[in-house]
């Protein structure tokens, strides 16, 4: 457990400004996204310091909040495919798709993109 990185935990859960990453579904405040980017997928999303990018790659449209405390052990994290990610708050469902460039990049890398809006089930 202690070997895990931890995302910034938003201080005010009520804040409407909470945003969820469209790719990894982590929930952070826009300020955290701007300062640190996405702790899981910054390499692809490149949000750090780019508010416009944050607007495009994250959304306030999410449903359900998961506190992932032990990603490696948690079945929920595995089910949500976040067990390799940092500890933090994740959304159960995120509405929207990642920007097209990210999607193209994922494709070029041979990664299957799974939108987190639960529209696809397998």
């Amino acid at each position, binding site marked *: 457990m202690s*070997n895990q990185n931890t995302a910034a935990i938003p201080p005010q859960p009520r804040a409407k400004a909470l945003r969820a990453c469209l*790719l990894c579904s982590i929930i952070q405040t826009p300020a955290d996204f701007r300062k640190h980017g996405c702790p899981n997928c910054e390499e692809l999303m490149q949000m750090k310091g780019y508010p416009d990018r944050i607007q495009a790659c994250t959304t306030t449209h999410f449903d359900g909040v998961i506190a992932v405390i032990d990603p490696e052990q*948690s079945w*929920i994290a595995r089910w949500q495919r976040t067990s390799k990610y940092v500890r933090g*708050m994740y959304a159960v469902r995120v509405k929207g798709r990642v920007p097209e460039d990210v999607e193209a990049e994922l494709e070029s890398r041979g990664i299957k993109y*799974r939108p987190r809006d639960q529209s696809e089930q397998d």
Partner: protein
Amino acid sequence: MGAERGKKRQKVCGYHRTKRPAVNRFLDVEAEVDEDEEDEEDEDEYARDEFVVGGEVEEDDLARRAADHARFDRRERELDDQDLAKIAEDVSQRYRRTAVRYSGDMSDIPQRLLMPSVHDANLWQVRVRPGKERDLVFSLMRKALDLEYSNRPLQILSAFQRDSLPGMIYVEARSAKQVSEACNGLVGIYPSRGIVLVPIEEMASLLQIKKQDLTVTPGSWVRIRRGKYQGDLAQVMDITENGEEVGLKFIPRIDLNPKDDGAIDAMGKKRKKGANGVSSFSMRPPQRFFNYEEAIKVYGRKAVSKRNQVYVFQNDTYKDGFIEKDFRLTALQLDNVNPTLDEITRFTRGQDGAENESNVDLSIIAEASRKAAISVLQPGDHVEVFEGEQAGVHGTVHSVEQDIVTIEPVGVDFDGQRIQIPARSVRKRFKPGDHVKVMTGQNADETGLVVSVVDNVVTFLSDMSMQEVSVFSKDLREAAEVGTGTNVVGNYELHDLVQLDLQTVGVIFKTERDSFRVLDQNGQVRLVQPHQISMRRDSNRAIATDSEGHELRVNDNVKEIDGEGRKGRVLHTHQSFFAFLHNRDYNENGGVFVTRARSLVSLAPKGNVMKLGAADLSKMNPALSGGAMGGMVGSGNIGRGPRDRLIGVTVTIVKGPQKGYVGTIKDTNGPIARVELVTNNKIISIDKSKLKRRNPNGTLEALESAMGPPRNSYNSNGPKTPNPYAGNRTPWGGAATRTPNPYDSSRTPAWNASARTPNPYDNGGKTPAWNASARTPNPYAAGSQTPAWNASARSPRNPYNAQGGTTPRPNSTWGGATPAWGASSPRRETTSGGWNSSGGWGDALSWGEPANAQTPGVAFTPGADGFAAQTPGAFEGPYETFRTPGAMFNPMASAPTPAPQTTGISHSNAGAYELSERWLLDSEIVDQVRGIAVKIQGSSSKWYNGQYEAKTGVVLSILNTHNEQFGTTATVKFDEPLDPSQSTLQVPVDVLMPVHPLKSKDEVMILYGAHKGQLATVGLIEPTGMMIVTTQSYLVEEIHADRLVVVRKDI
């Protein structure tokens, strides 16, 4: 090799670490190192990749450059050890692996393989305060991080909440104990309500809950949830890429009457910050298209700027009169929008107003209503397919399953086969001639005949308003019924009498959706809107007169005597002239028609009662009605007759179907009284003879007791001789009624007058006057009196007039009871004998013998006078002498007999002087009846056939029914019962008479006078029958034995 690599890594890390603080401040750094160190045992390649990636995760260019340097250094060293081929392989592998690493290999695994197994931790459901779910999940996260390095770190693996599952969160942990430990100390969690294990098979579905997705597309309709435009319809124009905001077009609400400029500025600034609609919602301006001229007039030219086709005003954009504004999706209502035809018409009409009103683009509405159409389809509905391959096919709905409708098409090609069609592709089908009913919307309940069908808009001719109405077919059903379900529009109801204008009233005979059909008093039918009605009129109390002069009231069943002879029930009367009748048998005007009240005749049998002509006439003729009401004509009040004294009297009905009911007389009409019943607040007409006056203590007495005699006598006299002295009657009658005390009124006027008027002239004049009038032919009396009396003596018909006219004063003196009572009573008896037959004074003439004693009669007057003064001494003698020969004094002895009561004189009800039949029920006595000695009297026809007549006994108790009809009985213990085994019997009170005291020392109760009801002891007994009694409060009273009743304590 592994160790060597490890060392290298350490070295690189060290290098890295020195660099990093200068470049950025990532926390990851430490963690990265830690991970590295812990992973030392791991497979090398993996570990190295981890490290490399760790460098690449950093976005900062400097950091990346630093990482590149590090990598380059390392590669240079590696070059020494490895051949190029190996290096090439490494390079390719590393880059590939780096990319894969990002999303992990997790995304390749189908989710079904991720289903939980028994090896996974369990999911526990915990109850929490609704609304705090998300807070608590965050709290759990923070708590876990806080306690991470403590002695007792949280053991839970995760926790989550779903918005669609309020009041609960789910915690992933190995045991419930770990959950409760985690929850311990958090506010808003209710572990006491149970930590419930979620079955493994349900775990996944908790995370798969999916809200019904509401998608918006450009062109769709939404409603604004909050703010100034709350509830307003808006059309979506565009949607932002992430779907969070939509551009809307809707009708603005611009305040054209702003409070003051300062307020506007403040408001405007506020609006800039997105606080649109903060202004008081209650004051929101009406929807109105943006008009450039209007806006600059109110807000000034500067406030509005124009860019291309668009106006910008207060930071909002206006185009074609509409406001165009971006809204967050959360501020919009996407479902159940149900735009009405009206709203959409306004939208499509646009700024130009009525210009293009006619060509409403129904396709817009069609789109809006299509979705709703799905939910209104029912099996059996006739539908047609209007799009897709099967377009044009029509048939009946067989079943509906979600969005799929199975229809059985009609036509030759389809031989009983069913086809399945998306519900949005079908619509209800109507054809001209169908009779339909509107199910929803503002035209709900309207019915009519379909005249045309254009796409899904059906136009039908309303049954009610005969106007064409266009509605969506989805809102229609085929229906056989006609008309509307309600009879109430606004405050008005079917068959209400309403005032249309100053001169016109009418009756609503038909209600339509928002208007009435009214038949006015001229027989004309008007179509009236509720606002055209000035008031509703109440004719419940109105009275008209029918052709026979009878009262005509609401709800009477009547018939026309002329014209068509229509029958009907009176709905209303107006100005006593028009009557609105209703009869269901007539189709015209809903069965309502108007006619003149004078041409109606009542169908109800009650008309017969009212036909007692004299009564009705007297009612209508004020002069006569005065006579009927007790001689008030002379009051000089020529107008309406005075208020009947009976009005307002509380009565009990003693006969007929309403027997026993209590009510108040509201009106009288001859022998008929209208009585408002207490029990059901109804007014009934009833014969006065069926009524008894009800005293406050519950006892009953004849209705017209106080003024009985005058009325009787006048009734016989009055109509015959409308005599000039009528006015003189007034004081008489008034006096009589003013003194309901039976003892007062029971006295003859002559007696009282003489007793109370020391004036010798009066005295001398009056008493003989009586004699004189009684013995009219006697010239002596006349001659000895004043001329006035002579006159009166000559008109024996009006003895009262004469008496009253000459001595008006006695009226005022009658009120006081005089102690001369004992003497008066024989007098009264005497004269009452004469009064009995007021019609013929022959009886009085039969006084012949007393007339002979005329001379002593003169002496009698002072005697009476003296007696009244309670100084009997000197006059005792003459009085006695006068009394003795007077045979008429016999009645005095039998005073208790009921005989006087039947004389029909007003005083009758007052009873044998002091004693009513129900004396035991007197309020002062009834409470202390026990021990009163009674004897049975007058029981021959009432009780035991008189077997107990004259028996004596003692009252034990009384059962008072407060109703004359249900005999009030007393329990009497008889002294000598017929059946010795049954000495106690229930005896009707009206056969019980008091046993008067005979001897000194008797315990008595006073039955009359100021001390009524008091117990006393008899002291002296005087030869006249007077007794001196001492009450318990040591008052000494002189009272006649008749007024005392023996009380026995020996029971």
